[in-house]
């Protein structure tokens, strides 16, 4: 494809780091974009607050009223949006590299549906909210991941097969989900349905901590082991020849990616398509054939904050879940992907 890209190489005692300047620039721009939209989200709402006041409040020198609006009402939601977007982007990037498939994102292999089932069981059968719902989601996600792994990899995996299996498992879980909703009271059912679409409405500091800790622990791990992804993409034998601990890297990466997806879903519900679309979009912007994990995370954060802004301002109704926006955009993106592939560019 392209010719040799420029690289910056940093070497020090015991480490060596290669950076693609364009990827770095794209990553920084995406982070800035995400933060910019986040700032806009902080200023707008039922009660508009000027940018200056928001910044002053964030710096700790605002008045009590602004502080309340910023810290209690808007900042948790904005942070959750940023962090969930980043977690989904990173998770999608790792999954797509591991499965060597642009469709191998957590929402396609049924992980988010599994997390949703876990959460719904807690919400509608066991009863409970907040942390218990999150725990249910994480548990559901992990169980689904193990099941799919056992189903898909026993006889050697083929990329598309994993996706199809995921679709089958998702269909099964979605049937269970709609049954759970069907058998419950209207108000509970409505709350559950909104959760199922994926929403960041009314998220507080607890959720920020959940997804923040998940991201803080797993993102460095994923980035550290992510350097092996390019070698793994060449095939197991090639990777072994280059000194990559194949089994360990793959297991750790897969587990961490499942964890990221689970943390994100536990916080905001199964938000569709961010994990699918963020990595390739970031790769396209940075003109690199493979997807960096960090640019993908930045792209995820930017996409989700922008989506949240659109959910609040473009669509009618005050509490439209952000999942509606991402699902619509993601479907369009996937359609475009299929069209492009149909044209035979691959």
């Amino acid at each position, binding site marked *: 494809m392209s010719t040799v890209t420029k690289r910056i190489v940093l070497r020090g005692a015991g480490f060596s780091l290669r950076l693609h300047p364009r990827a770095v620039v794209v990553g920084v721009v995406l982070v800035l974009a995400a933060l910019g939209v986040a700032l806009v989200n902080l200023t707008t709402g039922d009660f508009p607050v000027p940018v200056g006041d928001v910044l002053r409040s964030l710096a700790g020198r605002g008045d009590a009223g602004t502080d309340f609006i910023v810290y209690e009402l808007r900042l948790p939601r904005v942070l959750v949006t940023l962090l969930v977007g980043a977690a989904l982007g990173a998770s999608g990037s790792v999954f797509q590299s591991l499965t060597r498939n642009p*469709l191998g994102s957590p929402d*396609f292999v049924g992980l988010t549906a599994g997390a949703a089932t876990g959460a719904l069981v807690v919400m509608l059968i066991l009863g409970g909210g907040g942390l218990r719902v999150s725990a249910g989601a994480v548990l559901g996600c992990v169980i689904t991941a193990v099941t799919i792994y056992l*189903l898909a990899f026993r*006889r050697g995996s083929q990329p*598309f*097969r994993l*996706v*199809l*299996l995921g*679709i*089958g*498992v998702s*269909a*099964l879980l*979605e*049937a*269970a989900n*709609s*049954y759970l*909703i*069907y*058998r419950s009271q*209207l108000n509970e*059912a*409505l709350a559950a*349905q*909104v959760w199922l*679409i994926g929403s960041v409405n009314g998220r507080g500091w607890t959720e920020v901590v959940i997804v923040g800790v998940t991201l803080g622990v797993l993102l460095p791990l994923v980035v550290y082991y992510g350097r092996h992804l390019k070698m793994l993409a060449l095939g197991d034998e090639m990777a072994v020849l280059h000194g990559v601990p194949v089994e360990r890297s793959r297991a750790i990466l897969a587990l961490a990616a499942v964890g990221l997806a689970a943390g994100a879903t536990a916080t905001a519900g199964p938000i*569709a*398509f961010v994990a699918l679309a963020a990595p390739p979009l970031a790769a396209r912007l940075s003109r690199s054939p493979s997807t960096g994990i960090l640019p993908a995370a930045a792209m995820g954060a930017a996409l989700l904050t922008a989506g949240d802004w659109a959910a609040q301002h473009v*669509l*009618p*109704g005050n*509490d*439209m*879940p952000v*999942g*509606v*926006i991402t*699902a*619509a955009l*993601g*479907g*369009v993106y*996937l*359609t475009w992907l*299929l*069209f492009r*592939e*149909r*044209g*035979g560019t691959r």
Partner: protein
Amino acid sequence: MIQATAVLTAPPDTRPRRSSKRRWIGFAAGLVALAVVVALSIAVGSRTIGLSTVWHVLWHEDGSPASVIVHQLRLPRTLLGVGVGAALGLAGTVMQALTRNPLAEPGLLGVSLGASTAVVLAIAFLGVSTATGYVWFAFAGAAITSAAVFILGGGGRHPTPERQVLAGVSFTSVLGAIVWAVLVLRREAFDRYRHWDVGSFSDRETATILQVMPFLAVGIVLASLLGRQLNALSMGDESATSLGARPVRIRVLGILAVTLLCGGATAASGPIFFLGLAVPYAARLIVGSDHRWILAYSVVLGPALLLAADVLGRVLVAPAELPVGVVTAFLGAPLFIALCRRRRLSVL
């Protein structure tokens, strides 16, 4: 059409033909199974009624509670199950033949959801409130989605089963987003929707069933007559053309049949997944690749499977009941997974 059918006499399969005796025996067994399931569907329910009573009130409508239950609840429900089962089985068969994709299915390819999206939009924004009104919107939605999925997933140079399923998933996603947005905005529509979305035969009004039935009947007849044409198409467009068939016309007729069947079935019972996948699969196991036989089997096996799932749903968690869509998903998804796990996904 007459010209086309007259020329197409050569059997399409090159494999040794299955003995027609086996096909007839299987067909008879299917009919018996269907009769048994229909009987079960009338006899079994959350309220236990003795068999002799059921038999008696079936022929003598005497206004007793048992008679009311049998005539106003169980008979329409059974009729609906037969119609929807035949429709979905046939729709699956026709879609698989048109796309040459063993995974094609109204639910997975998003056609059912296309129908339901149109219905939801009609309820919420156009104020349509009668079942007769829904049906037309369901047809429109099913027609648009099936055409779009075929074009996107099948029209290219390398149509593959996987790509079609993915095209379906991407449509499902966009359509689902539209439905969700509407439902969040209109809470009152949500309550109706969640009972319908799960795919169920209970609490359907008899009037609705009667209004949908003619459309289903036309679709069933149209699909049943397509056997020879689908056989021709299964040889590839060029061979089919050289034998005098017209691939474009066959596709148009096929999509028309799928539209009638899916639109009608979805309007009546909500989206039901996997039946359209399982029925042609089972039929092919018995009869091989002749579509005339597969279609005939679909008409019998579809209702039998769907009613069996419905009865199972009534029995499993009695006195409550599992919606039939949930039962079919739990029975059908493992089949789908097993199909996907086979070493090679053969293209039909």
